């Protein structure tokens, strides 16, 4: 989780990732930032994020992104 927050802060420093729960709906992360984020996640956690998983619910908070990574690891 710490590693994920580190990645997020590097990509978009103006957000408190421990509390923010509307990263996509609140437009804190735009499409290109999400793309960079996916690239970082795939690189760091050795998973593949399919397009079908790119929905606001999966990217609205650091917690939900981490849950997605965990789910993809299991698959």
């Amino acid at each position: 989780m710490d590693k994920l927050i580190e990645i997020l802060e590097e990509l978009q420093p103006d957000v408190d990732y421990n509390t923010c729960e509307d990263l996509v709906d609140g437009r804190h992360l735009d499409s290109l930032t999400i793309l960079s984020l996916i690239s970082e996640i795939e690189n760091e956690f050795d998973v593949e994020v399919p397009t079908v998983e790119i929905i606001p619910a999966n990217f609205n908070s650091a917690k939900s992104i981490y849950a997605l990574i965990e789910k993809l690891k299991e698959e």
Partner: protein
Amino acid sequence: MSYFDLWFAFLFVPVVVLIFLLVPKKAKPYILLFASYAIFFMVSNFLIIFLLLSTISIFLAGKKFKKLDGEKAKELEKEDIDKKLIKEKYKKKKKHILVLVILFNISFLFVFKYLKFFTINLNAILKVFKLEELSIISLIAPLGISYYTLKAISYVVDTYNGKIEADDNFVRLALYVSFFPQIMEGPISTYSETAEQIYNASKVTYHNFCYGYQRILFGFFKKLIIVDRLNILVKQVFNNYMSFNGLSILIGIISYTMLLYMEFSGTMDVVLGIGDIFDIKIPENFRQPFFSKNITDFWSRWHISLGHFLKDYVFYPVSLSKPLKKLSVSLRKKLSAHYSSLIAGGIALFCVWFLNGLWHGAGWPFLFFGMYHFVLILMGNIFEPLIIKICAKLKINRESKKYYGFQIVKTSLLVFIGEMFFRADTVRDGLRMLKIMFTKMFVLSKNEFYYFGLDMFDVALIFIGLIVVLVISILKENNVNVRDEVEKKHIIVRWAIYYLLILSIIVLGAYGPTYAPVDPIYADF
């Protein structure tokens, strides 16, 4: 036909509501489907066959996906099998169907919308090589083909991906594709957003009826008070731009952008208002676009449903495709995460904006419009780290109100220029208008002394209308929903507001031979 036709909003809709209320629950979706097909048939006659073909094609594709998924699950239950191989086999089968159905649907769109443009440009090439030119065929497109085709594609892709379950109910799917308030100008909602809601609509309460008509009337206010008046000015400037100075052209392009916004958002007020009557929450297509910080922000607030479609069905699939992923990985060794993703994202963005331009129309000004926004968004992203550094060095607070004000003005100016190319007859005309703005900003000619064909009364009403919309937008931006606030007021105050709105439309609307009502602009896309 237009949603602003009085017979549609004040006769057709109430009659549909009445019949809808009278029939038993089971028959309600059939009434809505009949109303939708009736509107379609009224405008496009037997071209309704293409709407049916699209609907049938995605219905069958969805069923086939479901069947294949069932077969796959059965095969995977067996022991001593290569699961990966089976998954691959079924994925391939499904992919073939997906491609076939998308091509089938796009081919209609191509023939009706792009064949003429394609033939004209192909002939230009044939002429260079002194080959025989092809004859140009002009076809009248089925109503809302640009909208319902995208809805059809979104359904078939979502069922392919397993995001939604394929629908076994043809009426529900047909209603989703053709729902009469959405057929002409969208919003391009996804199946999961509206299909169930429309199919299950069962009541029209007095509250919903008033709440819906409140919004419909606001749409009429925008159209009849502002749009049809601004149209006179816009026509004057765009048709005779050579005889105006830069300032007048600037006024012309701002007016055109306002006209476009009021016309399209006003139509959405009618569309969403009809949805409200049936208690169907159709997704919003606008969110105060002129409070945008940058062009990316603008496009997340303007024609939202098209942006969502292009993001979900073009941007991510292209940028996360195998070849672009490979490119990103290899670039990561040389560049930072920001720039390596930007290159893959940039290629996907190009596809998005090329298609966005093309979707708006078969013509070079539209493609130019798309490319203009592509360049602006790409530049914005490339220079963002630099701008952050410069602001930090100059101690500019990027969170301050002043900076936000500066961002709004900058973004709006860029939008006005983009819309100028969008409206101009040719790209060359747009470039000439831009040149006049830079070289003859304040040079006076005799044309500047006229009010662009409007009298003082018209000008005053345009201003009042725009101020009303601006105040409501500021309140909305600050999370105050004016409609809900009106709802809370005492019945006398509430009805006084309704009557004021109705009276202002009846008395102050642009009627008569002086005004040529603006045709629904977005229905042509």
